């Protein structure tokens, strides 16, 4: 006998891992093949923010919280428009694929426009439901560069990774750290957003929309700059180096350009990948971490104080403390593993943080860092 009802049939979908692991669940979203680096997040809310976060480009995102999609998906604009709507960190799903235990086929939240399933299908992104996400976290922790492939039972093609990468990503395992993926998520043309007293040059390595929102809310105007912009040609009061995906060493000439910026005096704030780039530009080194920080509950504290903040994080590289040049000092540390979570120049107005002061999703304890930055620019 069977208890299946008429609408219960979902296609099977398999996750193949580079260590030989193989798990089968049900497909949601688009029936397309995808591949990428296996990562996870332990955040219990904020799935639409995470999926659209450009830092997850090329990564297969495992949600450890087992119930995903409960409050549905708000209406997504086709492109970046003002005012920027909440719930999204870019205009598309950037994660290569998503893995969850249980999805919510229906959504009832007042702000929901569609279900996770229909959204993923519309976005051309495959997902697998019904896998043991807790077990996958154990596997990811055991092999830090675990790669995965998502293979639907009957796929109609490959997920789109943009013009330069789709071909590479569709063959076998795709390791985003071996490619210049910032290019795939950075804006293609310079664009001025908002109107304000001061202009921030925002170097887009895959910027989260909430960084832009936060700057606009604080009365700045933002010039969004492609990652390979000639920064010397930009007229702005301060720089913000954004978050983004991949190995900071694969950001090409950007480090050299930032090295030029720190010769000057205009304030600089780096966030996540931007923090690593600033550190590299200052002459420090970055390392691949044994265990990345991928959650909304990362405790950091300001060096030489007893004051902590709970932060949202998603990174697999870290600034090597011992390589920090004399003119710089650690600003924040992680309370658990004592790794560097922020640096600042001892004299000049340059600083950066490994975590996300703009949050979305996750706790908003460190919004004051953006306040401080904007205040400094304005005075």
């Amino acid at each position: 006998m069977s208890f299946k009802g008429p609408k219960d049939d979902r296609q099977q979908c398999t996750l193949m891992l580079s260590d030989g692991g193989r798990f089968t669940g049900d497909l949601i979203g688009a029936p397309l093949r995808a591949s990428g680096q296996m990562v996870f997040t332990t955040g219990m809310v904020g799935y639409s923010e995470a999926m659209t976060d450009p830092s997850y480009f090329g990564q297969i995102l495992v949600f450890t919280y087992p119930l995903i999609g409960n409050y549905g998906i708000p209406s997504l604009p086709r492109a970046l428009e003002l005012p920027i709507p909440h719930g999204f960190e870019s205009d598309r799903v950037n994660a290569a694929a998503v893995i969850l235990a249980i999805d919510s086929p229906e959504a009832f939240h007042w702000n929901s426009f569609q279900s996770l399933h229909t959204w993923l299908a519309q976005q051309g992104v495959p997902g697998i439901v019904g896998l043991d996400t807790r077990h996958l976290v154990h596997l990811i922790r055991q092999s830090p560069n675990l790669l995965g492939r998502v293979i639907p039972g009957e796929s109609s093609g490959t997920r789109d990774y943009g013009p330069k990468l789709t071909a590479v990503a569709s063959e076998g395992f795709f390791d985003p750290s071996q490619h210049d993926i910032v290019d795939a998520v950075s804006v293609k043309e310079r664009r001025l957003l908002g109107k304000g007293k001061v202009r921030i040059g925002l170097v887009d390595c895959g910027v989260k929309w909430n960084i832009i929102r936060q700057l606009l809310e604080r009365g700045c105007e933002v010039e969004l700059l492609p990652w390979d912009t000639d920064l010397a040609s930009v007229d702005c009061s301060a720089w913000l180096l954004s978050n983004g995906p991949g190995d900071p060493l694969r950001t090409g000439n950007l480090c050299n350009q930032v090295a030029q910026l720190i010769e000057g005096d205009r304030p600089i704030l780096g966030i996540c990948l931007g923090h690593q780039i600033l550190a590299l530009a200052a002459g420090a080194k970055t390392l691949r971490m044994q265990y990345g920080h991928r959650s909304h509950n990362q405790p950091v504290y300001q060096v030489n104080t007893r004051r902590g903040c709970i932060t949202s994080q998603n990174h697999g590289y870290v600034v090597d403390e011992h390589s920090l040049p004399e003119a710089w000092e650690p600003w924040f540390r992680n309370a658990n593993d004592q790794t560097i979570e922020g640096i600042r120049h001892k004299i000049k107005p340059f600083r950066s943080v490994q975590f996300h002061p703009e949050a979305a999703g996750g706790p908003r304890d460190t919004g004051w860092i953006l306040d401080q930055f904007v205040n400094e620019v304005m005075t």
Partner: protein
Amino acid sequence: MPIRSELKTLGRAPKVLLLGSGGLSIGQAGEFDYSGTQAVKALLEEGCEVILVNPNIATVQTNPEKNVKVYLYPVEADWVEKVIAAEHPDAIVAGFGGQTALNCLIELHDRNILAKYNVLNLGTSVATLKMTEDRDLFAHKMREIGMPVPSSKAVTTLVAAEKAAADIGYPVIVRAAYALGGLGSGFASNAKELASLVVPALANSPQVLIEKSLKGWKEVEYEVMRDGEGNIITICNMENFDPLGIHTGDSIVVCPSQTLSDDEYQILRNAAQQIVEACAIVGECNVQYALDPFSHQFFVIEINARLSRSSALASKASGYPIAYVAAKVVLGHDLLELINPVTGVTYAYFEPALDYVTIKVPRWDLVKFRGASRLLGSTMKSVGEIMAIGRSFPEAIQKAIRMVTEHGEGLSAFSQTSESELAAALANPTDTRFYAVLNALRHSWDIEKIHALTAIDKWFLANLREITTLEQRVSEAAGRTTHHGDDQAYLNAVFGELDAPMWRRLKSAGFGDEQIAALALKASTENSEKLTQKLSEKRVQIGSRVVRELRKQKGVVPLIKKIDTTAGEYPSPSNYLYMSYVGMFSDQLPDDGKKPIVVLGSGAYRIGTSVEFDWCAVSCSRELQKAGWRSVIINCNPETVSTDYNSSDRLYFEEMTLERILDICEAEQPTGVIACMGGQLPNKLALPLAAAGVRLLGHSPETIDKAENRSLFSAILDKLGIDQPRWVAATSQADVEKFISEVGFPVLIRPSYVLSGAAMRVAFDSESLAQSLALAVDISTDYPVVISEFLLGAREIELDGVAKDGEILTAVVSEHIENAGVHSGDATMVVPAQRLYVETVRRVRAAARLIARGLNLNGPFNIQFLARQNHIKVIECNARAARSFPFVSKVVGLNLADAATASIIGNKPALLRFPEDDLPHVGVKAPMFSFTRLAGADPVLGVEMASTGEVGCIGRSFDEALLLSLEAAKCRRPKKGVLVSAGPESEKLKFLECASFFTKMQLPLYATAGTADYLEKHGFAVERLAWPAEGAEGGPVDVIRVIKEGLVDLVINVPKALHHQELSYGAQIRQAAVQFGCSLLTNMEATIAFAQALGRYPDFASSHEVIALPPYRS
């Protein structure tokens, strides 16, 4: 060492006074044993000496351990001052004993007692506490920091309340200040309803808040911790399944929130942080919100700057040891330097990431309180709760319902409501509304319609629909299979072909094996006229074995998952476990090389099972650990110490069902299971477990059966020549009539396997007999009704002990103050016995020895006796630890649970043969009632248990111990006047003695007509009162008015007969007494003892010198 400089510089171990919460009552229950016990542990770790004031003798925290001095005294400023004067503590900690402790702290501060003795208040300041407690000040503070609060007005008179309500606009919510569990709160839609709430609320509280009603909004809570450095973390948030309007203690609560977006989650999290920062909270704080279900708008409802029921739940739900960390924080540590003991590698400064969902479901016992309204609102009514952990919502909620109902068929067992009653059942929240929601789904009502009636979020409803859909499919599929008369063959035919994915789907949705078997068997019964046999519990249990086997053949077994606070991000040695079918792999558990023994806990607290059984289970677990075993606890009650991460070597926070215990035994392969420590629930599972091949440690299955099976037990007593009240197991009306013709009335009627007197009744005549039989389950051979002779005027004696292979190793005799007829759980008990003849005690002990041999008792046990003169009769024998174990253990200084455990595992416990001899003190245990919360319930003692907790105190004499324990149970020395209404002639006669005591104390006596006549006839001056509503101008005053106007503060009302009446005058008097805060006694023996003690100790409060509970004798 503590970091606070005031304590650091003492140059010796700081003495810290810790306040407990007193006896368990509705709104303030076992959660404070959890928080207090963790606080004790943290304080000891920091090298402090702990002085604990708490009269709750059944708790784990009141174990007189090394460096812990226990004072079993009421948590009230006068008594605490005496303890302070005797002990000179350096500091006081009040955040771990609920509202009782906070109120006491505030009073100690206001009366300058803390300043006088130079006692430092650790934790949140008194000024802040007062601000958070005073709703006006709180609202003002919130507005000051830009936090939205619903418009409200604090009032002190009814007139002001009416004006405020008119200004704010009905409906309004009425809240009493300084109240635990929302006492005296409620919704009012008009002036009349307003008055009915405000008048009694103002009788108990100086101030009442009239507030805008936000019915239907989402209710969300955040648990926050702030340290002295200003570091703040959010442990977790929780969302109520039931929208605002039902007290959170009566709501199904889901952790973490399921229907909140990141924006909503973070907005409320930020607000919570701003609030605790602005209030400068140090330690734990709970923040409650109302959230608009259609926008980001929210209101702050209240905050609790202390450990609470919610924080206990949050602690168990998240795995974060909130109370332990909070205790370290109040000693001055900051969160950045404290290690998270659950991971051992990360710090206390972080926010737990959950990778499962937990659901708390309250346990109500409203059926036990005759007359109590079953409507839920803003006054809490539940007596306990459970928490279920799953990886899908249906899995967790189905577990939860099995846990709370203790019914193997889970929520499928409650599908009777007819469709016509549904709309009303949905619109008016009661303790059974949840089942009405399921029934509506079974009747294919759409989610919109149910939502419109209940305002329950549609996401929850959709998840419940998944359950009813699967239920229906199982029934339909089963209905297509023909039942040929053999259940096993039938179930094989139905489920034999079911593939693994479908099994997984059913099990991931939380279906139990018994539930699946029952659904199929019911479907067959409905479809076949040949099968008229009733679906018995036994048949379902046997059927479930077939289901279990078929499922296991397909490889579908539950997985063991860890709760590690980091969702697997860090490796964790956590021993906090649950089981789920959502997933593919079990977590790796470290092998400690020890042999496991499983200890079954108590399940939900309810009337009859409370913290005392948790004390037994915790004692047992610790004793096992000491002896080198791996102690494995199974329990599902978040209010317990046994479910703390450090009470066992492995904790399965799991359902106490046959299926799940077998799953755990298959995984753990234990040497055996101890089922005799957790009370009635594990005891009930013992025989089915043994039948399924599990080895029981302690009493053998034969012993348990002989003790529980009335016929077997009775036959053994006959054989041993021990007398017992005459009885019959009636399976027909004819049996009943025959028995009555032999013994006459009154008789006691009860079903088999009785739990705290459920459905127990006394019948005094054929009319009440017919009523009682109608209330009992239908008489049949499956469910015989036991009817026994009911002895009036007999004393009740209990014997608690430990036996080994049929020989009693030790036993303690205790005596009830009330005559037989009061449930043993509601009786006032004394150790050592005060009024028994030496010969009676000798006969009790001799009978106990024979019974121990006759049953071959092998573990903890309790025997209850009746005695008239020296003639004794045995009522029952419990082959398990009993409710009285912690009380007698602490009074005699011998831990009976430890001794029983040592004996069970083959060690020789250090024992005393007659431990109650040669004690320097007397111990009295008194019941604690919660009638103030149960509108409509008749607060009278009878054969059905009604107390929600107990207190126990020691004194140098019986009188001292009695006065203390009664005061701790809120029965205080009268100061204004005494109202007496003694029904039967015999009771009036007994009262004469008391009357002279009260007269000597110059207390005016008030009495109703009959009693007044009697007293006057015997020469007492008495104010004659009229029956309720019969007072006349110029004539006698209405009895209720005397209570309302506060002319009396002690009400003695003894009902005419022990059976329940409809709302009689007596019941109205008793209800009024409770409602208006009078001490109430409904039993004449207890009244006499109380009056005598009052008379002999006229200045007790000032003359008594406090004594600490001596440590256990070794």
